[in-house]
């Protein structure tokens, strides 16, 4: 009889008795101030965009003065970012699962065109036209989700493909013809519902808040609740974080992924409805850069492109940062290229900060 197990472990582990026994326990450690900042940001991922937004507001109030910070301009910024904001909310859902949806912008335009054609050209009741438009969004999202889950294709490739497919189909359907604002007013005014507004104070001094802006806040509020307070929301994060671990934990990952793409499509269609109110007319050629702008808002909002990390409220601030920077630089009288220049740097800095936060250690 050779090896006899002892009560306190193996023979060769004898020296362990003299060593530090606290390895597998949870203990407090000292952190440098920088590590502490890293920790705070790690547990509060929305703090970076909030701080950046506040800094941008202060900076532009100094540079551009009263023209920037008067209520009317602040309301205008919110109006300008409302559509991209809602689209960024849809994009966030997909990015949290470590995917990307290049087709949301095209799907939004597709849904707005369908709403317009059904409601204005075919004279269907507006409510039904809107419902069918939202249904189209959900179906388009389901198509993406089907290829990603059932055929296991990379989301980037799938949505790059459906982006072209959606755009071409909608242009074939409409013959690239826009639907004019007067025609919408005459036959289906409900399509422009989100263009209505509430004035706080008297224009031009007061702020003008459109229903579209309120819708943006509502969409973010609902998604925040769903992602943080329901099991489905936690599963979305778990899938994006480590899909194998989620699967092994008993989460039905394919079902979660499919539902995320469908919801993203539905939210994109709601953005479509709001976009009719914002623009007035329906154009199959509008919002050509909406995909990339939504990804920009998500990234600046601190949602990790690697999935599983970031708050849904981040992209709301991300969209507001983009709007603020654009408005501020314009009012400061700088060339429009400087707006694009600054947004480019913001993206790179945001991703760099995300990488740093991810490296947090105990």
């Amino acid at each position: 009889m050779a090896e006899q197990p002892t009560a306190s472990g193996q023979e060769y582990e004898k020296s362990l008795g003299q060593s530090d026994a606290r390895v597998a326990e949870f203990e407090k450690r000292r952190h440098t101030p920088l590590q502490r900042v890293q920790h705070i940001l790690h547990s509060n991922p929305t703090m970076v965009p909030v701080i950046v937004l506040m800094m941008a507001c202060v900076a532009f109030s100094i540079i551009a003065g009263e023209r920037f910070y008067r209520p009317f301009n602040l309301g205008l910024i919110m109006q300008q970012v409302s559509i991209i904001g809602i689209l960024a909310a849809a994009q966030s859902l997909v990015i949290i699962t470590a995917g990307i949806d290049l087709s949301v912008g095209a799907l939004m335009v597709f849904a707005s065109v369908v709403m317009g054609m059904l409601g204005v050209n075919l004279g269907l009741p507006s409510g039904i036209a809107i419902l069918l438009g939202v249904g189209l969004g959900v179906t388009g999202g389901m198509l993406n989700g089907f290829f990603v889950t059932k055929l296991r294709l990379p989301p980037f490739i799938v949505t790059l493909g459906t982006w072209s497919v959606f755009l071409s189909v909608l242009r074939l359907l409409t013959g690239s013809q826009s639907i004019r604002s007067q025609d919408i007013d005459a036959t289906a005014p409900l399509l422009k519902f989100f263009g209505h507004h509430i004035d706080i104070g008297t224009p031009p001094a007061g702020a003008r808040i459109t229903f579209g802006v309120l819708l943006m806040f509502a969409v973010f509020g609902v998604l925040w609740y769903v992602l943080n307070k329901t099991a489905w929301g936690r599963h979305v994060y778990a899938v994006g974080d480590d899909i194998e671990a989620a699967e092994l934990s008993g989460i039905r990952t394919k079902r979660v992924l499919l539902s995320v793409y469908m919801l993203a499509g539905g939210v994109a269609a709601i953005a479509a409805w709001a976009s009719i109110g914002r623009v007035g007319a329906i154009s199959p050629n509008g919002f050509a850069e909406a995909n990339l702008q939504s990804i920009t808002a998500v990234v600046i909002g601190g949602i990790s492109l690697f999935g599983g990390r970031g708050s849904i409220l981040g992209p709301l601030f991300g969209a507001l940062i983009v709007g603020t920077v654009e408005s501020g630089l314009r009012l400061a009288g700088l060339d429009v290229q400087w707006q694009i220049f600054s947004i480019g740097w913001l993206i790179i800095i945001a991703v760099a900060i995300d990488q740093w936060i991810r490296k947090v250690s105990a």
Partner: protein
Amino acid sequence: MSAVTPVVEGRGLVKRYGHVTAIDHADFELLPGEILAVIGDNGAGKSSIVKSICGAVTPDEGELLIEGKPVHFNSPIEARDMGIEIVYQNLALSPALSIAENMFAGREIRKPGFVGNWFRMLDKKEMERFAREKLSELGLMTVQSINQAVETLSGGQRQGVAVARAAAFATKFIIMDEPTAALGVKESRRVLELIKDVRARGIPIILISHNMPHVFEVADRIHIHRLGKRLCIVDPKQVTMSDAVALMTGAMQPDAVAA
């Protein structure tokens, strides 16, 4: 031995992948309250047989009985619903989620009443309380916060969370697949103590491991798997580690040892 009903019993299990027979009429038996170690050389089919017990693999032939009743699992979720838990070598936890969220992944508790049923709101307080209680029971509760992300924990701490999760929800038995393989010496020691704690609470454990000292320390019986079937069951008190290795590699035949 025949008087007790095994917690899980496999009879004549067969699983073929094309021309390869991963499980070749294998038998399996786990008794109440024991730690059964499963050892075998690479490719002997020990993970296949354990997968067929936890529902990850559906056997082509044979019978699987849980507490004497025939069962047929189509997925690991079905096995889990029956109270079978698995601890994986690669620490199947979501790094960015908290300890409490990981413990309840896939089986969250909703708030009672209207907010739970209609708004599907999670009962975070209850889940945190439960997670804290289960970690304290296993002596792991010097944790800074139950809402701490799992990625901020060390490997041993993570495996502690995984073991606590399994122990909290297992009503039948726990399968541990190389639970110490990814850990250092001291952390392995802590996890071995945890395994003994779990047995002391009456939950039987199937332990798959390559680490002979660990197997001989904690196992009550050792199932030696070779060429797709159970070669023999040995008592770690009667057999040396070198004999066990000789048996599983085929250097020795089972009748050479009085098991």
